[in-house]
């Protein structure tokens, strides 16, 4: 059978295995990418797919795609795929690599994605020396959105946002990301390549493969910047766009190796596996009895709970702790909870407030912009938030005289001198717990056992626990006196 008459041809270069055979992106056109004719992303995608094939890593590759014209990498690459928010691919890749050290993780990004909105993520991933591979496709423009200037846009280059051409005085200079990143200690390999002619293209293919190989060898952070044509936005024919890479773009962005420490770099040990969830309390030094007991004191019955509370006062009045005890008690009672503190830059004496939600269903946002209950621990806080209270809601106000101009017909008020009451109990600082007691009695949602468990989890000093328990009880009694027993 192997006679010389069997002279034959075999495939030397063909479609990479790491591409899907068909792209499920549309009913039609499943055999085509969405890239324009002559697009540099197509070529970079192809080089990447071929390198994955050659290294035999298809089954353990996870590709993190960007926002931009190459957003659809997940339709094309038959590997693990994630599509990150604009600019965030290196952060996503970091998480993936650290939790799956055996995976080969690639962050594929455009120049707008990497050098504008994502400039922080790439800088820090590179600085940490994450063992990931970054393919940075630089076409000097935001293509997907129609041609706005990017940080990489050349001086004099026209774009929809630099119609007269980019000027250094107003738009600054083209950002040289590879050179910038090469000032950092950690990266092991950074090279800029181009797709401007055959020679450049061949080198680009080699560089992409090396950048992947470095990761397979465990060496650390590698990045290849690919100067790539975008014939559509540049308004050039594909061949002219290719030449523009070589003849014009390369003058601003010289090709070459900016960093190569692959010779001396030692394989980095993979990040240690994350501890199991059950081990975290021990690591944090949380005693067993302090652990939440799940639904130990679950809310009785099948009542629908959806409580939105805003608590406001001066720093030092216990605003945040009041919210925390409430949220923690909700957690103990098996509810969904959120607690969102919001305070000024002052450590003391500034105003502070927090948002607390307790719900039987899931919570969409921790922000409470229209509270059902406002706990105002002083007058400025009342004035700041009283208009936001939902009709039919409550205001619990720390003061015996409720300011007349804050009164609303559609909101009920419990106004008492809580600080004085707390003082009589033994410490003026317990006023927050008296107000919480009133709130708990008013809402009648949380079992007392949950509140007690929450208090003991958050307050360590036994003297304070005792005082706070009395304060809570006092608050409950005050509410009953004002509204239930007298009748409102």
């Amino acid at each position, binding site marked *: 059978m192997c006679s010389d008459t069997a002279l034959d041809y075999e495939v030397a270069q063909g*479609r990479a295995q790491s591409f899907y055979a068909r792209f499920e992106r549309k009913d039609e056109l499943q055999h085509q990418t969405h890239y324009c004719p002559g697009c540099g992303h197509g070529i970079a995608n192809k080089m990447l797919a071929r390198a994955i094939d050659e290294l035999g890593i298809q089954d353990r590759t996870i590709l993190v795609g960007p926002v931009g014209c190459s957003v659809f990498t997940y339709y094309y690459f038959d590997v693990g795929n994630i599509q990150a928010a604009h600019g965030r691919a290196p952060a996503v890749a970091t998480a993936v690599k650290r939790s799956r050290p055996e995976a080969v993780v690639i962050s594929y990004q455009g120049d707008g994605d990497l050098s504008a909105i994502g400039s922080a993520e790439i800088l820090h991933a590179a600085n940490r020396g994450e063992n990931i591979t970054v393919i940075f496709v630089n076409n000097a423009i935001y293509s997907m959105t129609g041609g706005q200037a990017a940080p990489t846009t050349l001086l004099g280059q026209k774009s929809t946002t630099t119609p007269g051409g980019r000027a250094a005085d107003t738009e600054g200079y083209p950002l040289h990301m590879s050179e910038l990143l090469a000032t950092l200690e950690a990266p092991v390999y950074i090279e800029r390549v181009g797709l401007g002619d055959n020679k450049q*293209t061949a080198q680009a293919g080699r560089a992409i493969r090396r950048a992947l190989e470095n990761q397979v060898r465990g060496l650390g952070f590698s990045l290849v910047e690919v100067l790539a044509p975008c014939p559509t936005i540049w308004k050039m024919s594909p061949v002219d766009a290719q030449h523009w890479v070589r003849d014009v773009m390369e003058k601003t962005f010289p090709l070459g190796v900016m960093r190569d420490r692959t010779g001396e770099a030692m394989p980095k040990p993979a990040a240690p596996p994350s501890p199991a969830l059950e081990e975290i309390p021990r690591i944090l030094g949380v005693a067993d009895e302090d652990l939440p007991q799940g639904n130990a004191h679950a809310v009785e019955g099948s009542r629908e709970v959806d409580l939105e509370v805003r608590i406001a006062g001066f720093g030092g009045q216990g605003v945040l702790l009041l919210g925390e005890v409430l949220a923690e008690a909700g957690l103990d009672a098996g509810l969904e909870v959120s607690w969102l503190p919001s305070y000024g830059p002052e450590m003391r004496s500034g105003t502070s407030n927090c948002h607390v939600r307790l719900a039987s269903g899931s919570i969409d946002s921790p922000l409470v912009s229209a509270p059902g209950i406002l706990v105002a621990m002083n007058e400025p806080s009342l004035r700041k938030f009283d208009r936001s209270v939902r009709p039919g809601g409550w205001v619990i106000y720390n003061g015996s005289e409720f300011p007349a101009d804050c009164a609303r017909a559609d909101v009920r008020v419990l106004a008492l001198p809580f600080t004085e009451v707390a003082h009589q109990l033994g410490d003026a600082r317990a006023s927050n717990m008296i107000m919480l007691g009133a709130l708990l009695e008013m809402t009648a949602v949380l079992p007392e056992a949950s509140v007690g468990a929450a208090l003991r989890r958050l307050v360590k000093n036994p003297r304070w626990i005792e005082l706070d328990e009395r304060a809570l009880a006092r608050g409950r009694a005050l509410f009953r006196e004002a509204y239930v027993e007298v009748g409102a």
Partner: protein
Amino acid sequence: MDAKKRDRGLLRIDQDECKGCGLCIEACPPKVIALSAELNHYGYRTATYAGAGCTGCGICFMACPEPGAITVLRAVSHPAAMAAREGAAHA
């Protein structure tokens, strides 16, 4: 039978995948690719092989942005290579 007369390479172009960008034509050293006169189903003039002269260098393949528009084949002419080919997993 006469190996000298056979081209070392052979080019296949998928007329449905080619977008007619012309990059392969620009890239091919012996210039054996041209754009078709007719339009394909999607309205592109597509790359077409002249039918002879391909060296199998593979340069057009990497110049092309489309995953499978181009396939480059190379001549296998002797028993050892044939045997290697039989052994190759996905030839």
